[in-house]
């Protein structure tokens, strides 16, 4: 038994969480929770309706654009600041501090600038995602061992070759970690953005369901979000570990 669990921890974790969910349902009752099976069935029903797919498409579009902005802007900021030791030292504390800000407090500003709708959601998603990508890229640049630069100088690499064949490959694992975390936070930011000042998308659906106390919709949408976030993150994490141990 022990061996089986150790070989497949994720599988047993899912089983354990489902069991806890079911037990919680028995404890708090039907007007607060839906049991796992019913939630899954309800989600399956929702997934057969065109309107639900419309919400998914809306959230998906906002998320993909926000993620693209997060990655491009995060890489640009991280590289621009990280390539020079001075700028890295000056700006790193700001980046780190901005990570600890409750960004939701900034949402009204985003709404005032962009108005209600798609651009505001995208902006709010990107605000969440850009910080970790920038922080990790910056750290990745300063973490490249100095001996690599000395070795590159000994091999008479040009500046461009240095960036392309030394700096980027050496920094890639860290940058990838930043993108992985950026992915998760962009999704969270986009959903949060949809919960206010939006007329469509999964976040909007969640918010209206809260207003109507529609537990079926709340739980199915939550389940869908958790499933997508957890699955993608697990896949990215696997790739992350592969990048960190080439050949291992």
């Amino acid at each position, binding site marked *: 038994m022990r061996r089986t*669990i150790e070989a497949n921890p994720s599988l047993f974790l899912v089983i354990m969480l489902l069991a806890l969910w079911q037990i919680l349902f028995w404890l708090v009752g039907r007007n607060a929770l839906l049991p796992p099976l019913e939630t899954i069935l309800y989600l399956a029903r929702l997934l057969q309706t065109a309107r639900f797919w419309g919400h998914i498409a809306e959230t998906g579009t906002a998320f993909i654009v926000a993620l693209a902005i997060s990655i491009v802007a995060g890489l640009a900021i991280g590289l621009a600041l990280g390539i020079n030791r*001075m700028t890295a030292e000056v700006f790193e504390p700001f980046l780190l*501090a901005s990570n600890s800000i*409750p960004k939701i407090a900034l949402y*009204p*500003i985003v709404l005032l*600038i962009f108005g209600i709708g798609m651009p505001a959601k995208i902006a709010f998603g990107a605000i969440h995602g850009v910080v970790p990508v920038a922080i990790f890229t910056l750290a990745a640049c300063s973490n490249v061992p100095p001996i690599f630069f000395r070795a590159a100088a000994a091999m008479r690499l040009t500046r461009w070759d240095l960036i392309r064949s030394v700096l980027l490959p050496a920094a890639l694992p860290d940058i990838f970690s930043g993108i992985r975390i950026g992915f*998760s936070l962009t999704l969270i930011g986009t959903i949060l953005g949809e919960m206010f000042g939006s007329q469509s998308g999964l976040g909007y659906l969640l918010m209206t369901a809260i207003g109507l106390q529609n537990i079926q919709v709340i739980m199915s949408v939550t389940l869908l979000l958790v499933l997508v976030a957890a699955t993608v993150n697990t896949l990215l994490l696997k790739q992350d570990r592969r990048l960190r141990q080439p050949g291992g």
Partner: protein
Amino acid sequence: MRIVLYRLLAVVLPLALLEILCRNQIIKPLTLPAPSRIVLGLWAMIENGTFNAAIVKTLTNVALAFGLSVVVGIAAGAALHRARLLRTLLEPLFATYYAIPIYAFYPLFLIVFGLGDAPQVLIGFMLAVVSMIVSTLSGLDSLPPVLAKTPRVFQLGPVETIRRVTLPYAAPYLFTGVKLAIAYAFIGVIGAEFIMSSTGLGYEIRFAYDNLDNNVMYPLILLILLISVTVNMSLDRWDRALQARRGRV
């Protein structure tokens, strides 16, 4: 020293630019009032005490969420460090935990716990506790075997070993956890207030936004930024001072 100057400039210059843009109506006051007006507004607000109740409410809930997460996080981390099987089982959950939109659970908490402070505290706690658990685990994991053996050579009992060796060794890791926990407690509580509660700073910001009351909204946003950045930076500084002495920068 030059770095401090540059950092100061990096704050002051953009603010000055904003001030100029706002005063010349290039940025409309409906979008953003001039930074100086926001600061004065915050000052007046604190003097009048209009939002003292909201501030106290938010800070109390943050403190509760934070305190709970530190106590529970360290205890759970220490317990998991021993319970190998349970740890293997939970490891994938920890790895993917911060990818999950915790706010999506908020409506469920509302239904289960009602409209009091409990849902906000719980969200803050749920966000904070996992980073505390993970930091505790990594602190305990990194204890070198030779430092685990040494207390036995000096015949220390389990309690003394924890007090005189394990805790001091793991302290920097726990401190990292504490820093994260306090940031997450803020993010969780204020987010929860913003989404659905009817008290606290998060709620007041949302209320001001809904009423297009920029003269209240911006000073409150500034207040939240100031509190979280100040807490974060002073903990960071303290951490660095402690670590420099130990020579682990």
